[in-house]
């Protein structure tokens, strides 16, 4: 029987996950041996009709990275869902909306207004906007409809496995591919390519029972950080405690606080509120006014809470048209 087919697609994302697939270096050869890559728009010149031509479920594994921002991506997602057996949400964007999902703080109108009118580098006196279909000399140009909200993959099509990370760490990617190749598939819906604990477990810094801070500090303003001590205990917002382990503590080992790209820990539905709870727990005061002052030092709670998980957050998007 011919080799199992592998499909990769790059939807609303930075493409980092695609590149991270290349990062497996020589392991790509094993992949090539085992799989017959049938759809990889960024890597190989495949077209949509190639996929449409396939039979349903013909493809074994589809590594879908990127969130669903417009109509086209929704369509391809549905298409691939039909065509392949195992759909893997590859990377934070696919799993929870990722960075693009930060667009949910605004709607299409506000985004276009910013992108095409008010952005400082824009010179668009006629205020022209891209249209879903425009007639040009050569004929009719079509653009997909730009959704107000960015959706995670599993909010469009059912997803078998979620592979967190932005991008997923190389050896986690290798491990996932090998698991799939081995055929020993974990139960549907589980998160693969990550640990079962939180980043704190992999973080080399010392943690103490007493976690009390009088104010939170922006990283770039700190010059006295103790490299051996837990960042949160020093007043730097670090999403480590609320983020699933698996990355090996890459960021915290180089004095960068974790931003939560590996998503919520096991059993947690909303990573953001859990981080908020954690941040509140370290506030050192019993006086309401002083607590308010300390909270004021956290300038963008939403930004910290849902940097990578806006789409699958409880409230998904900001209510703009009130």
């Amino acid at each position, binding site marked *: 029987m011919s080799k199992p087919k592998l499909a990769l697609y790059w939807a609303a994302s930075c493409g980092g996950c695609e590149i991270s697939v290349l990062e497996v270096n020589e392991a790509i050869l094993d992949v090539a041996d085992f799989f017959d890559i049938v759809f990889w728009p960024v890597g190989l010149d495949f077209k949509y009709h190639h996929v449409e031509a396939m039979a349903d479920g013909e493809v074994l594994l589809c590594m879908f990275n990127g969130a669903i921002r417009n109509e086209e991506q929704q369509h391809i997602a549905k298409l691939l869902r039909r065509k392949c057996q195992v759909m893997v949400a590859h990377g934070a964007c696919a799993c929870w909306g990722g960075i693009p999902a930060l667009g949910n703080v605004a709607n299409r109108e506000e985004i276009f207004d910013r992108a095409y009118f008010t952005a400082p580098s824009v010179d668009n006196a006629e205020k022209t906007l891209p249209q879903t279909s425009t007639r040009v000399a050569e004929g009719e140009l079509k653009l997909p409809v730009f959704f107000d909200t960015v959706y995670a993959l599993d909010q469009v099509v*059912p997803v078998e496995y979620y592979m967190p990370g932005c991008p997923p760490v190389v050896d986690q990617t290798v491990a996932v591919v090998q698991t799939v190749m081995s055929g020993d598939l974990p139960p549907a819906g589980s998160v693969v390519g990550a640990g079962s604990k*939180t980043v704190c477990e992999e973080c080399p810094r010392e943690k103490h*029972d007493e*976690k009390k801070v009088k104010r939170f500090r922006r990283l770039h303003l700190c010059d006295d950080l103790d490299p051996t001590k837990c960042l949160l205990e020093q007043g730097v917002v670090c999403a480590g*405690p609320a983020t699933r382990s698996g990355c090996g503590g890459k960021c915290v080992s180089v004095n960068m606080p974790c931003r939560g790209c590996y998503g919520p820990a096991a059993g947690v539905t909303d990573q953001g509120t*859990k981080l908020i709870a954690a941040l509140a727990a370290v506030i050192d005061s019993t006086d309401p006014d002083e607590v308010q002052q300390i909270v004021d030092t956290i300038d963008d709670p939403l930004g910290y809470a849902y940097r990578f998980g806006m789409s699958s957050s409880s409230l998904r998007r900001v209510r703009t048209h009130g």
Partner: protein
Amino acid sequence: MPTLTIDGQTVEVEEGKTILEAAEQLGIEIPTLCHHPLLEAYGACRICTVEMQRGKRVRMVTACNHPAQEGIEVQTRSPRVLRHRRMIVELELGRCADLPVLRKLADDLGIDRSRFGTGEHECILCGLCVRTCWELVGARAISFANRGTDREVTTPYHEFSDACIGCGACVAICPTGVLKMEDIKGRKVIHSELTLGPQRAIRIPFMQAVPNAPFIDPDECAHFTTGECKVCAKVCPRDAVDHQMEDQFEEIEVGTILVATGHDVIDCSEMLRYGYGLYDNVITGLEFEKLSHATSPTGGKILMSNGEPPKSVAILHCIGSRDENYKEYCSRVCCMYSLKFAHLVREKTGAEVYELYIDMRSAGKGYEEFYKRNLEEDVVFIRGKGSEITTWPEAPGEEGKLVVKCEDTLLGTVRRLPVDMVILSPALQARADAAKVAQTFGLGCSRDGFFLEQHPKLGPVQTASDGIFIAGTCQGPKDIPDSVAQGAAAAANILSLVDRGSVVIEPITSVVEETTCGGCRLCISVCPYDAARFDEEKKVSVVDEAVCKGCGTCVAVCPSGAAQQRFFADTEIMAEIDGLLAEIGDRHQFPA
């Protein structure tokens, strides 16, 4: 041990004893004026002179300080001794007024009048007071002044001496009573302690005190002010007095605590219109109880501050109770004790009694019948709260009286009652330190400051904290039967806990899932009871179930969701939320 004969009787006494002590041992009485067993013999009055024969020499010596020597023969009533004794008493009478102590001696010796006339001095210069002040009390405030016939006892420059600590010892020991104890400390006798005369430094607090033993009041005791005295220790036959004893604080471990700290009574002097503290004869119920009690200084007689029995008494209910400006609640006990007072006054003094009430709350067993009895005893009941007490007479018959203004709602008129004495029934209120006590025992406080029972109906003596119970007026105003009942209830509860042998701990506790806990220790940081500890090997937090009280704070804080609370897990609460908001049916489900 010297042996000697006195008036023909031989006696053997210890070394260092005096003739006087030897005579006492034989029961022979020798008169003394300036001698006191606790003081060093002074030998000033010479009334104790006796005839002593030693060998062949016969001499007249004073018995109070002459040592009882071996082989001496003493005559205490020989003609020569009596002649001298009579002359000395005559000389004293010549100098002093007819003082009882001298009159007694004169009668014994058969002297009716002194040939040297009668003086007007009341001090016989025995020096007992000076020596007590110097040797016993140690204040050294008074001394002898001048010489010869001008000799007198005085303070320097006859002025008030700031060395005097007002202990009253000199007054107590003075045989003629010339020294008087001015109430120099300005204590208002009738009100504050209801004790008349100088306050003994060592006294039994009150008659029925348990234990019924004396205590030393350090502020009054001369030893603590001058370092001397200790007379009480000297005279106590069982050496029970020890001035070195200190208050001791004992720390005991108990399983259960019964808080029964009682109540305070509102300070009536805050309500200026009743003139409490201003007029002598406006007293509170508590003070009337002390006054009419059999062990009171007046022996239970109801007297005004000037010592006369009152002819008319007004008893004012609800002073501070059922009053928006003070206490809104009814203090529950005043009506009944006011009726008791009315009955007592009628019975003991027959005075006219006015009861000013709003509602007569005689709700207890036999209470109503007692109220009816008071009616029959012609107690005048006026339905209307006493509004003001003044001494400003406006009508005849009001001079020198306390005039009680009140509105008689049944007659619909404002009345003025001129009475001799007013008894106020002050509101019961939580003790001043109730808040602090509540915090110490983790008790809740109701708005009026009384402690909060676990449940008004189902747990009146239990409290929010297991093992801590409350009883009596600390939980709210109530009378003695109710307090006793609550006390018994609390005791029963405690005993049931005690003999159960084991303690039921809270089932609702937190537990940490080892596989998902990342070891961030946030739970340890927030736990108020330090129930969560970090396990160094497994690198995870662990919750000690016995210590955990089940508040769930750690669960809310655990970012990894590893910590969960039994019976209140996240999923359960989320389900509750879904259930509550179910009608609008926005289920999260897959698109069709």
